[in-house]
């Protein structure tokens, strides 16, 4: 229904008030004031919403809705003034309906918001909170100030500790320098990190010549350097400390043996960073141990020789007496081949007794008969005895004298014993092999020693036995050998100032060699 038809249909509301000027004025002024107030409130809300950019979107929406609701309320009061004179009651009704909808929506929203509004802190509690924050800030400031003081103090302490650390390091390096034995440290790749005076003396170098270098870069002997580096590597890889004997040539003192204790270093549970070691020069101690071993071996040999002498002399004595008794039985008048053969047998018995007596007196430090002998002739005679039965066993023998006129000062019986022993050993080693070849050679060496070599084509000797070959009771012959022969040989040869050793080539036989000092006649003037 349009505006004109409404005006025609109804009468103005002023008529209900009988157009009383006072009553009309009261309504008009009151409604106008209410509408004015109602229009002012949304404007303030709009200003507030515009000024508070930090409002949440739904709060902003609520504020605007609230502003709209109040504005509509204001409009209804304007409509109330209007209908006093213009009877547009239908439009006023729709306006009220619209206002009702906005009001209801606003009210519903407000009801839903109340619990959340209750959760909002009150101004007092906000103020409490703010003052609590302020106190916290003050406490923080105080703590910061205290911390600054502490930092200052700690920095001071650190400076003191640093000075103390410098003093400790200085003391440590003084101590390391003062220790008479070598102390050193190397990094993971074997480069020298630290070497005290004794270490530098040991290798005959100055610190700048070794600093940051590896052993193979400053040690003279590459094989010694290789051995030392292999030891370092093993200690670092294994992570376990080791006590190792190491040999290093000293520029003046010659070859020295060191007992080094090497320890891997690095932090606990961390990777190993290098190796640190201390060494003790044990060259003299080792020599003393060798001398002692030699003496004890000689005394053990002496006891053994006495026991052997007794055991062998008994049957020899019996044989001799039987032979002499037999000759006596034949009678003084008998002259025949039997006398001669019995006499020869008896001579050999006495010779055997003589050998035992000589060895015993030798190993127990007694006298032996030293004479100038031709080593070639001596070897020939000893081989004559030792090679008995060799041909029958299919052994081809080859005796070579590189220098026939080769004189030595020896106890003939003893050296013959050594040759016989080596030759018999060689024959035993070859057993019943089809191609058994034995070679005996005499020669002399540039160092003034005569040398005798006995080589066989047997199976050679295992490395396991090789190291102990010359010790008593070590045998390669199983139950057949007592393992005494070579130890007696060694005692005899060393007693003559010579050396005895074996060259072992498994599969191609063994060669035993011994040396004796050559005897040169001083020309009579």
């Amino acid at each position: 229904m349009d505006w004109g038809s409404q005006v025609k249909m109804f009468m103005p509301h002023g008529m209900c008030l009988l157009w009383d000027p006072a009553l009309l004025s009261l309504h008009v002024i009151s409604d106008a004031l209410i509408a004015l107030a109602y229009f002012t409130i949304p404007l303030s809300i709009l200003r507030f919403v515009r000024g508070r950019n930090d409002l949440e979107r739904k709060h902003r929406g609520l504020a605007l809705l609230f502003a709209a609701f109040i504005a509509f309320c204001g409009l209804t009061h304007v409509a109330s003034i209007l209908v006093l004179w213009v009877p547009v009651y239908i439009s006023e009704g729709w306006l009220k309906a619209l206002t009702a909808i906005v009001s209801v929506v606003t009210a519903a929203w407000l009801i839903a918001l109340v619990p959340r509004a209750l959760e909002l802190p009150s101004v007092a509690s906000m103020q409490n909170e703010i003052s609590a924050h302020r106190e916290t800030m003050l406490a923080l400031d105080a703590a910061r100030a205290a911390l600054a003081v502490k930092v200052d103090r700690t920095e001071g302490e650190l400076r003191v500790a640093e000075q103390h650390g410098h003093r400790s390091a200085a003391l440590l390096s003084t101590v390391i320098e003062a220790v008479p034995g070598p102390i050193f440290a190397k990094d993971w790749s074997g480069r020298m990190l630290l070497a005290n005076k004794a270490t530098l003396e040991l290798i005959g170098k100055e610190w700048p010549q070794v600093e940051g270098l590896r052993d193979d870069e400053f040690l003279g002997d590459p094989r010694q350097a290789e051995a030392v580096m292999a030891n370092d590597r093993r200690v670092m890889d294994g992570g376990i400390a080791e006590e190792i004997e190491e040999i290093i040539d000293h520029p003046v003192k010659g070859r020295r043996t060191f007992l080094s204790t090497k320890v891997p270093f690095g932090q606990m549970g961390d990777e190993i960073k290098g190796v640190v070691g201390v060494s003790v020069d044990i060259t003299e101690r080792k020599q003393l141990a060798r001398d002692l071993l030699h003496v004890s071996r000689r005394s053990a040999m002496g006891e053994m020789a006495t026991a052997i002498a007794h055991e062998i002399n008994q049957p020899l004595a019996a044989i001799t007496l039987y032979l002499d008794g037999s000759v006596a039985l034949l009678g003084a008048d008998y002259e025949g081949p039997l006398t001669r053969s019995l006499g020869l047998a008896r001579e050999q018995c006495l010779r055997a007794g003589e050998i035992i007596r000589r060895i015993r007196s030798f190993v127990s430090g007694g006298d032996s008969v030293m004479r100038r002998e031709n080593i070639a002739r001596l070897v020939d005679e000893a081989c004559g005895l030792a090679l008995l039965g060799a041909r029958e066993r299919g052994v081809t023998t080859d005796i070579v004298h590189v220098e026939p006129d080769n004189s030595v000062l020896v106890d003939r019986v003893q050296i013959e014993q050594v040759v016989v022993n080596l030759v018999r050993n060689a024959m035993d080693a070859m057993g019943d092999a089809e191609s058994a070849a034995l070679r005996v050679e005499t020669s002399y060496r540039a160092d003034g020693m005569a040398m005798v070599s006995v080589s066989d084509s047997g199976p050679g000797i295992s490395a396991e036995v090789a190291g102990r070959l010359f010790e008593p009771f070590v045998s390669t012959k199983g139950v057949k050998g007592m393992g005494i022969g070579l130890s007696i040989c060694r005692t005899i040869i060393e007693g003559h100032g010579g050396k005895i050793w074996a060259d072992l080539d498994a599969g191609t036989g063994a060669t035993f060699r011994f040396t004796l000092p050559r005897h040169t006649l001083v020309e009579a003037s």
Partner: protein
Amino acid sequence: MTRPWLIHVVDDDAPVRTSLIFALNAAGFRVASYVDASDFLALEKDEQSLLICDVRMPGINGIELTRLLKQRGSTMPVILMTGNASHALQAEAMSAGATAVIEKPAALGALLAEIARVTADWR
């Protein structure tokens, strides 16, 4: 060539003992043999005789036996035989009263010469 003397042989080693008996018999001696010193001491000796004795024996050894005989006033000559005639042993044997020390292995000749020496003034 039978000789009248009785020779006592004391040696614990049977082959040595029997070879001595064989050789001394062959040389014309009468021989009485004993396996050890106590065996020898157990028998009464009234006949002029001499003793050939090993030094190293279990129980009473040759030197102790010699000393024992001399302590009992025996004048029986004692020839000691040993496989190890060191100077010390010889000195000890002589001070115990032994007539001679012979080293094994010994030729019968050496033994006979010694026997001849100690029995030279007998009878």
